[in-house]
Every structure is written in structure tokens, then in C-alpha cells.
């Protein structure tokens, strides 16, 4: 039997053991598990996974995470510089001591597990409405297994307030384990909010984060949504984020992907109301043997939608990056204005990128542009900096930062931006 099948069967057996203890909708879970059993882990060569081999993930017997005996060791991490309402999870379990969710007027931030126990009717109708799992085995797996996560409900008309931080920490104690964080965000009509999703883990830990996020932005809602992925470099991170936008709703998604041995980020936005707009700012930096994969889909389904997508990647060592960005403009989406660009900076001759933008335009009156580039640091720029006394390493760091700043400058939260300043340029300083 292959590793992929063995791994699948381990998950199925794990469900037989623990499925009964998971909170919430048993039927949905069973349905998702059956779907996962049928799909299995993606085989090599499967279209959606052409350049990303999940074999290393299937070779590790991950157990379902059961929380950490001592979450308090993460107090320092959990009380980071971000001034925000926060809900924190350590190894998949809600850590109330690091959470400060009260006092945010109107906005409700809850542990999904507790809501499912106390008031399942409030949340069950929302689950898996956006994150379909019929084709995505990881989303199916999450739906079958998720234990906890965040439920964020922003009431209609809520004005912009302090950011909301959803923090997922992996402690990596003991055997390799998997968590399946689930996040549900409901932004009511005309509401505004800033949400930060963070994933953190220790450098050497072998663990697997399999996250699913569903975001429903009602008419006129404005969301600034950050995802900061700083898993340990031996970790696996697979995440799927699905958003639906109503009339004139707007979503700005900043996707920062720095950690993980293998990181796969799926993002899909359905622009279902007229005039909806989505902005995607992505930044990934990988080195060593890291592999990062972004699959994005912007589905223009209504007239006058706009999308602006810029993903930039910095690669060192033997790292690999995959970018596949699809823009679909349906016949109903006249006057769509869509742009997409993916730029990559290779700092090593052994690093490589697969980049593929795809446009499917089925409407007539639209403006669409896309492009991708892969290049190296420009020697003439390096020389210019050095000719002014700036050392080679510093010159490289400056130019890497200059490459990334188009994305970093869009980050409006100082605490997040400061984190990036610290992470970027590690490779340029010779870590690669």
C-alpha cells in the first residue's frame, strides 16, 4: 500500500477513535470523512497539485492534537505587540488566558467548539457553506476533524475598531500531530473590520496545520484580512480560505507566508454582488528546502467587480514556489476590471518557481491584465549600492526589502509590518 493510502487510512481510523468526541455536526463530519476517503490525498500529477508533492506529509503518522499540558509557556508569544482583541489557540485548543475577546462592542468573537456545544443552531447553518469539500481532500479532512477555531460575527454597520487577532500556536511537544483549525467570519452589511490570522510554531517541530477559513462579507462590508503564516520550517501548513462578497463589499487580503517545510495556501473569492472588490497582496519568502504553493481564484460573478492581485515571492536555497492564479469572469460579470501579477526574486541558482496565471473571460466588456516574472537581484543595482560604501550583504538586504516593500507598504498594522521587517532579508544576510 502506498504512503498516501496508508496515511488516509490512519486518518479514517483516527476518526473511528475520536470522531465521537468532536463537537457539533456529526452528519456533516461523516459526509466530509466519506468524501475524504473517496478522494484520498492528492496524487502526483493531479492538476491542482501538479508541482506540489504531498508525499512527505503522508509519510508522517500525524495524530490528532489534544492540546498542550502547559499552554502558559507561550504567554510571551501570545501577548505580542499587536494591540487587538484576541482569541488564541494552542495546539488546536482554545487558550482563554491569552484571549481578550470581551468589550469589543457588538463584535462577537467566540471559540467555535464552545458555540457548537452550547448553541449549535447558531453556527451549524454557516459551516461548509463556502468551503466546499467535494474536490479538496484537505478541506474535507478539516470538516471531518476540526475541533476548535474562531467564530467572528461583526454586526451590520459596525464601525472599524481595534483589529481582531486569531492566533494559532503550535507547541510541538511529543509525537507529530495535526490540528484542523476552522475559522468562520461573518461581516454584516456595511460593517468594517480588520482581522489577523496568525500561525506560529517552533523551528524544529514536525506538525501539520490544516486550516479552513470561511468569510462571508455582506453588502457593503469592508474587511481588511491578514494571514501571517510563520510555522516552523519543519511543519506542514495547508490552508484554504474561501470568501463570498456581496454588493459593493470589499475584501483586502494580505497573505504573508514565511514558514513551513511545505505550505499550501488556497484562496478563493466569489464576487457575487455587483461592485464588489477584492485586493490580494501576497508575499512569500522561503529558503532551504521549503516549498510554498499559492492557488488563488477570483470568481467575478456580478457586474462592475474589481480585483487587484499582487503576489511577490523571494526564494533562496533549494526552495520551490508555486503560484497559480485564476481569474474567472462569468457572462454575468460585465464591466469587470481585474488585474493580477506574480513576481519572483530568486536569490539562489538552485531555487525555482512555477508560476501560471490563468484568465477565463466569458463576459464581453471587461478589462483584464495578468503577468508574471521571475528574476534575480539586478547586479547593476547591487554595484551602485556597493559603490557608495554599502556592503554586499546589506546591499542585498536593501534590495530584497525594496522588492517586498510594495506588499509590506500595504500592511496597515504596524505590529504586523514590524514582524515582516524582521523576517525579510534573513536570506540576504546569508541564512540561505
Amino acid at each position: 500500500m502506498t504512503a498516501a493510502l496508508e496515511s488516509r487510512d490512519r486518518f479514517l481510523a483516527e476518526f473511528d477513535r475520536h470522531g465521537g468526541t468532536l463537537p457539533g455536526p456529526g452528519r456533516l463530519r461523516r459526509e466530509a470523512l466519506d468524501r475524504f476517503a473517496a478522494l484520498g490525498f492528492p496524487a502526483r500529477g493531479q492538476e491542482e497539485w501538479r508541482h506540489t508533492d504531498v508525499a512527505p506529509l503522508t509519510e508522517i503518522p500525524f495524530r490528532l492534537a489534544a492540546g498542550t499540558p502547559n499552554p502558559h509557556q507561550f504567554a510571551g508569544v501570545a501577548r505580542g505587540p499587536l494591540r487587538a482583541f484576541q482569541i488564541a489557540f494552542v495546539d488546536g485548543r482554545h487558550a482563554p488566558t491569552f484571549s481578550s475577546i470581551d468589550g469589543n462592542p457588538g463584535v462577537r468573537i467566540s471559540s467555535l467548539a464552545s458555540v457548537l456545544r452550547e448553541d449549535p443552531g447558531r453556527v451549524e447553518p454557516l459551516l461548509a457553506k463556502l468551503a466546499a469539500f467535494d474536490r479538496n481532500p484537505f478541506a474535507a479532512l478539516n470538516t471531518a476533524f476540526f475541533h476548535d477555531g474562531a467564530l467572528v460575527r461583526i454586526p451590520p454597520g459596525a464601525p472599524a475598531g481595534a483589529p481582531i487577532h486569531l492566533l494559532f500556536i503550535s507547541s510541538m511537544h511529543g509525537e507529530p500531530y495535526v490540528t484542523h483549525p476552522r475559522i468562520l467570519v461573518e461581516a454584516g452589511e456595511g460593517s468594517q473590520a480588520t482581522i489577523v490570522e496568525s500561525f506560529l510554531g517552533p523551528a524544529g517541530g514536525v506538525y501539520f496545520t490544516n486550516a479552513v477559513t470561511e468569510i462571508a462579507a455582506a453588502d457593503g462590508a469592508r474587511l481588511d484580512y491578514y494571514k501571517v503564516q510563520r510555522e516552523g520550517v519543519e511543519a506542514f501548513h495547508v490552508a484554504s480560505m474561501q470568501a463570498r462578497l456581496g454588493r459593493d463589499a470589499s475584501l483586502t487580503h494580505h497573505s504573508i507566508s514565511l514558514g513551513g517545510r511545505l505550505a499550501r495556501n488556497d484562496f478563493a473569492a466569489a464576487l457575487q454582488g455587483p461592485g464588489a472588490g477584492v485586493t490580494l497582496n501576497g508575499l512569500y519568502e522561503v529558503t532551504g528546502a521549503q516549498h510554498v504553493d499559492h492557488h488563488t481564484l477570483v470568481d467575478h460573478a456580478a457586474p462592475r467587480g474589481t480585483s487587484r492581485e499582487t503576489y511577490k515571492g523571494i526564494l533562496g536555497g533549494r526552495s520551490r514556489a508555486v503560484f497559480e492564479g485564476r481569474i474567472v469572469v462569468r457572462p454575468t460579470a460585465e464591466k469587470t476590471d481585474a488585474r493580477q501579477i506574480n513576481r519572483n526574486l530568486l536569490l539562489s541558482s538552485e531555487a525555482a518557481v512555477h508560476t501560471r496565471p490563468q484568465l477565463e473571460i466569458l463576459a464581453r466588456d471587461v478589462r483584464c491584465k495578468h503577468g508574471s516574472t521571475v528574476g534575480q537581484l539586478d547586479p547593476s543595482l547591487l554595484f551602485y549600492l556597493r559603490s557608495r560604501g554599502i556592503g554586499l550583504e546589506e546591499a542585498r538586504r536593501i534590495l530584497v526589502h525594496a522588492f517586498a516593500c510594495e506588499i509590506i507598504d500595504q500592511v496597515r498594522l504596524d505590529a504586523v509590518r514590524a514582524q515582516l521587517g524582521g523576517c525579510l532579508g534573513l536570506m540576504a544576510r546569508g541564512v540561505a
Partner: protein
Amino acid sequence: MTMLEIRRLSASAGDRPVLRDLSLSAPAGEVHAIMGPNGSGKSTLAHVLAGRDGFTVTAGEVLYDGRDLLAMPPEVRAREGLFLGFQYPVEIPGVGNTYFLKSALNAVRKHRGLPELDAHDFLQIIRQKAKLVRIDENLLNRPVNEGFSGGEKKRNEILQMAVLEPRLSILDETDSGLDIDALRVVADGINGLRSKDRTIILITHYQRLLAHVVPDRVHVLYDGRIVRSGGKELALELEQKGYSWVEKELAGTP
């Protein structure tokens, strides 16, 4: 004291031999002009002196203040006080002009054992120097050279020179593409740096900059060699007779 001593230097650009057995000596306190037609090796000489990749020294040596210049990486040459004014200054999107200048100045100061300047002291310096070369303060906040006009780029080079206060400046066709007002500003900037401790090498195609920055010596570079050297009047002679004059004279020499 000799600031720059080039001894029998031969160098290639890529695989193509450009400089052949070139010798030149420039003492401290002097301004030297190196003139020559297109393709004579002017820019190659400038780049070899600044340490750019892609050029190979095949013979000879260069002493800077008595030390082996060619053994130093480009940034060390700069920290030791060598400055190259680029013929085509590059645009660096994403790097602010002020940040760049501050990084450069602090790298140079650190090398000289001086404390790094804080933001306030640095701004004082840069504002004063910017006024000197008549650079709009807006350009200080923009990315290096991005969207600058040709003249603004050249003035930005002179600004960098004024901030870094190099001991040996090599200005590669800094006068090209300047209108008369910009030329005067650039010339003032160069003249402002003249002192008994500094040496300035002006690499130029034309005489017109030399009307504003009067050189102590003029050298004619032709086919990779210095074929004639003289006083400032040599520049005028070249201007009148053209480079073909040198060519004919050389052909006539046995």
C-alpha cells in the same frame, strides 16, 4: 603625495581588451580631465577603478594613496574615499533616496571609526547639501533616481558626492545630458569639493564642463591608452581640432 597611480594597466570588458598599458598619475589636490572619443575606454577605466564586475584586469596595477586599489571590494574602495559618479545612474525602486544616503554615509563613517549619525543630524547634513546642489527636497523622499530627469539624476550623483566627501572622485561623463543651468550647478558642486587633500578625475567627451571646472591636467585617452597629456589648453586644442587630430598625429608617429 600621489593619490592615484595607474601603472601599465590593461583591462578587458568581458572578453574584449579595452585598456592597453595605460599609465596615469594624479597627485592630491589636483583636478585631472580624461578626454577621449567614444569607445576609447573612458567608462571601462572608471568602472575598473570602482571595482565593477564584468571587467578583468589583465596586467598592471593601481595604487590609491599608496595601496593596492584593485585588491579592495567596491564597498571598501568607497569607504576608503573613492567615489564614482555614474554616467547612467540606476533607478532603485523601493529604496528611498534619504535612506540610501544615510546607509551609505553611515557605512563610510563606521569604516572611519566615526559614530553613526542619528536621523536628526543626518537630515541637517542632507538638507544643507541638497540646497548646495539645488535638489528639490521632494526628490530626497522619492526612491533613488526613480522618475528623475536626466539632470536630476546627475545632480543626485553630485549630492551623494557632497554627502560622502570622497578623497578621490571619478566623474564619468557627469556633464552629459545637462542643460547649461544644470551644468553650472554640477560644476559648482565639483568646485566646492576641490581641496588640497582631494583629487578629482573628470571623464568627459567635451570641453564644456572644463570651462567651469578648470583642470590642472588634461589627458587624452585613445584606443585604451593615454596618448597625450598637457595643461588645460590641451582641452581647448582638442575641442578645436577634434579627436581626428590625435588620430592623425598618432598615425604620423613612427
